[in-house]
């Protein structure tokens, strides 16, 4: 499953898996947006633990969810970024949006 979504106490976690490219990002986006629109979480966590590859489509995915959470008045967190994914996100300046968390649980 490329995306699994869990909701607990207004915190929605979307566990992304596999490879994020233009082809897969569309499906992930629809799943996440659908769930977020239904439950209006105060925090959306995108978990990249099981993501094995990401190109700039992943940046679009994060930026789009960032705007969505701003619209919903909530916040976005991006967690468990491996070296390569962090590198691509830093290219986009996503580290400056202060949503990137590498934390103790990162690989």
């Amino acid at each position, binding site marked *: 499953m490329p995306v699994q979504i869990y909701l607990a106490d207004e915190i929605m976690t979307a566990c992304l898996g596999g490879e994020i490219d*233009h082809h897969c990002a569309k499906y992930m986006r629809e799943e996440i947006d659908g769930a977020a629109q239904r439950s209006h979480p105060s925090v959306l966590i995108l978990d990249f633990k099981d993501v094995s*590859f990401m*190109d*700039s489509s992943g940046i*679009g995915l994060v930026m*789009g969810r960032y705007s969505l959470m701003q619209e919903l008045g909530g916040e976005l967190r991006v967690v468990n970024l491996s070296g*390569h994914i962090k590198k691509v996100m830093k290219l986009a300046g996503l580290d400056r949006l202060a949503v990137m968390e590498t934390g103790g649980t990162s690989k």
Partner: protein
Amino acid sequence: MKPVNEMKLTFKSRSTNESFARTAVAAFVATLDPTVEEMTDIKTAVSEAVTNSIVHGYKESISDIYISAAIYPDNRVVIRIKDKGCGIEDIGQAMEPLYTSCTSGERAGLGFAVMQSLCDKVRVSSRAGRGTTVTLTRKISSRGGQDE
């Protein structure tokens, strides 16, 4: 300098083939014994160029994308991704970070920026109405006999 190895690939501009294209190029480059990081950099750059051809060149219609790759004796890999799509009117503008012609808000406009940061050289040639060719050059660190 003559290449020591070459390959050519033609495939349809279906988005499922983005994964096929970058994996095929990676398998070709694997003969040079690149590091994991070098391999991922190349896969990412190829993925960006192929996505551009699918999304912008062919505007999601189905046509052919051509990839050729060559390995040179100095461990340089040169990869050419070519489409016969709509072409780019203004290459300078297309290569500007964050510029995108896509209005859905889901494309970051960072494809060329990613390619440029992950490759040693990126060359784009394009003619409106004729198509676009992106040439990526990346040198692979020579690890032969120097490991550990």
